[in-house]
């Protein structure tokens, strides 16, 4: 993985420029075409409601009329039954933080074990986890939801008690943790395996136990890989609708922004002035993360999909 990235960085400099201007032109046309829909949303969100409904957003440049009233409306106006969007914004934060931290912590542990402990059945576990990556969430939703709602009782034996956590963040956190684990373990395992064997063995010879070895050597070395996956998981959780919808129990108190936005689209009452502003609020955080940490994101993407 790292070799591929390094090569690609070196290559892009080494290759002399041999691009035809037509190819560059075509690429720019596609790039602009790709951006227009998002740009239209942004422009619309800062226009007054009257303008939005009476003229296309592209007329904005002939007649620039800027208003932030839409943002004020969608973010702060609301009732107890229809809470303002800022509440959902905080819900998204509260859902996302643990749903990123929990799976990464557990995955670094498991990846360490699978990469460096010698035991029977290691390959079997690794291949199983690899296969689990592509299990569709849909396959687990109903039984997992029942687990959260009722616990697990086989015969008369309570295997998992009912913790009464429906309607809190806890089922959403746990569900995201479970769904994020296979990919996290797989990516981090690939990375941890590249730590030189001599380094591990030298530390072992010096008398470092498995726990010291982890916290003193393995963890510090895996920070870049953790960062890559963290961005991945962050975008995945922040943008998720299905898990929040299923495991939030329909409670507005814990619903992330995507749920609120989907609801606004569904109800005829919300006009474009609220929808565009609301959509922009919900995409701005991932966009900032994406543009500031794009390199790490790409690295994670390549580690996950380009084999070799």
């Amino acid at each position, binding site marked *: 993985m790292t070799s591929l990235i390094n090569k690609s960085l070196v290559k892009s400099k080494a290759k002399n420029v041999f691009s035809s201007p037509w190819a560059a032109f075509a690429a720019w046309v596609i790039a602009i075409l790709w951006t227009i829909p998002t740009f239209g949303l942004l422009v619309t969100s800062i226009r007054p409601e009257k303008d939005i409904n009476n003229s296309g957003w592209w007329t904005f440049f002939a007649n620039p009329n800027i208003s932030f009233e839409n943002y004020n409306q969608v973010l702060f106006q609301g009732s*107890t039954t229809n809470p303002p969007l800022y509440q959902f914004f905080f819900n998204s934060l509260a859902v996302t933080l643990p749903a990123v931290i929990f799976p990464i912590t557990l995955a670094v542990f498991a990846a360490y074990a699978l990469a460096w402990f010698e035991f029977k059945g290691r390959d079997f576990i690794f291949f199983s986890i690899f296969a689990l990556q592509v299990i569709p969430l849909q396959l687990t939703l109903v039984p997992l939801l029942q687990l959260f709602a009722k616990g697990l009782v086989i015969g008369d034996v309570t295997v998992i008690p009912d913790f009464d956590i429906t309607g809190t963040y806890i089922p959403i956190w746990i*569900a995201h943790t479970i769904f994020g684990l296979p990919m996290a373990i797989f990516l981090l395992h690939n990375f941890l395996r590249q730590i030189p064997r001599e380094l591990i063995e030298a530390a072992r010879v010096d008398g470092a136990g498995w726990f010291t070895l982890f916290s003193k050597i393995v963890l510090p070395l895996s920070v870049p890989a953790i960062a890559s996956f963290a961005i991945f998981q962050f975008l995945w959780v922040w943008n998720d*609708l299905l898990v929040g919808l299923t495991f939030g129990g329909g409670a507005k108190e*814990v619903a992330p922004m995507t749920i609120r936005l989907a609801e606004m689209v569904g109800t005829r009452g919300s006009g474009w002035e609220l929808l565009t502003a609301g959509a922009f609020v919900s995409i701005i955080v991932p966009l900032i993360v994406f543009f500031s940490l794009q390199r790490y994101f790409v690295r994670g993407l390549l580690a996950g999909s380009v*084999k070799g």
Partner: protein
Amino acid sequence: MFTLALHAARKTPADIIAENFSLLALALLSFGAVIFLIFLIASRTSVKTQEWLKYLVFLVPSILLLVVGLIYPAIRTLILSFMDKKAEEFVGFDNFIWAFTIPEITVVLTNTAIWVVTVPILSTVIGLAIAYMTDRMKRPAAIKSLIFMPMAISFVGAGVIWKFVYNYQPRDDKPDIGLLSAIFKGLGLTPPNWLLEAPLNTFLLIVVMIWIQTGFSMVVLSAALKNIPDEVVEAAMLDGASPWRRFYLVSVPMIRATIVVVLTTITIGTLKVFDIVRTMTGGNFQTNVIANEMYSQAFRQMNYGQGSALAIILFVAIIPIIIYNIRQLRLERTER
């Protein structure tokens, strides 16, 4: 604390946020404290104890979560798919017969098939084209960022963005605010009611997914193209191969493995597509797909049997990809 949802109606948003964030802080702090304590104690144990303790701390939690949270539910779903609505009686293959014979559901399966054929191929082709066009460009970063950007946008957000593009103005006396309609009128055509007309609407939804996935295929394929040894490309150039011939005689065969990975990854993502359809049409007007229908059967109509059967059909469609991927992984491992 755990019952906060029940009497939250009287609270202001600020109260709810404060309460939620104290739960958040509590969860994060206790998680951190538990792990810190475990490490503190475990690192002081004897070498012999550590030989078994290491499995318990590092490996067992993940395995337990995966078994309880993925494997057990998957098996349970398989059982549920052979049971009735309320999961009380076995009904044999009734749910599957239902899925393949009821016209409403066959539309769902047909649509899903259309998605699965078009999205991976078009996203990969467009992504590859852009990757190749920008391969030898001096500064491709801006272009790539713009095309890659939709990857960071949620499907729901993308749904809103494109629903606005497809906005239809039924009245003649009012100007269009949807871009597509305006372009159509500008060309002297009469715009259809975009999202209501089947099968056009399904393809319009597919465009949204392609818009998102192209960035992914572009980034991955572009890295693969960069990885082709310079000598190979230069040799082809010296032989006088045109850029087009170089592309399909040299570049494409050399990154074939990566193309397959991109295709399969997008295929799996497309099979599971749910948010786009739900946000943009709610699955109405003959645009429904399997993941959305599964959700509404299981959680709206509380029809566990048929919902589970749809989930199983979805899974069966993915199985060949899983097998193929494991084979590839095995091959790679033995090559090392």
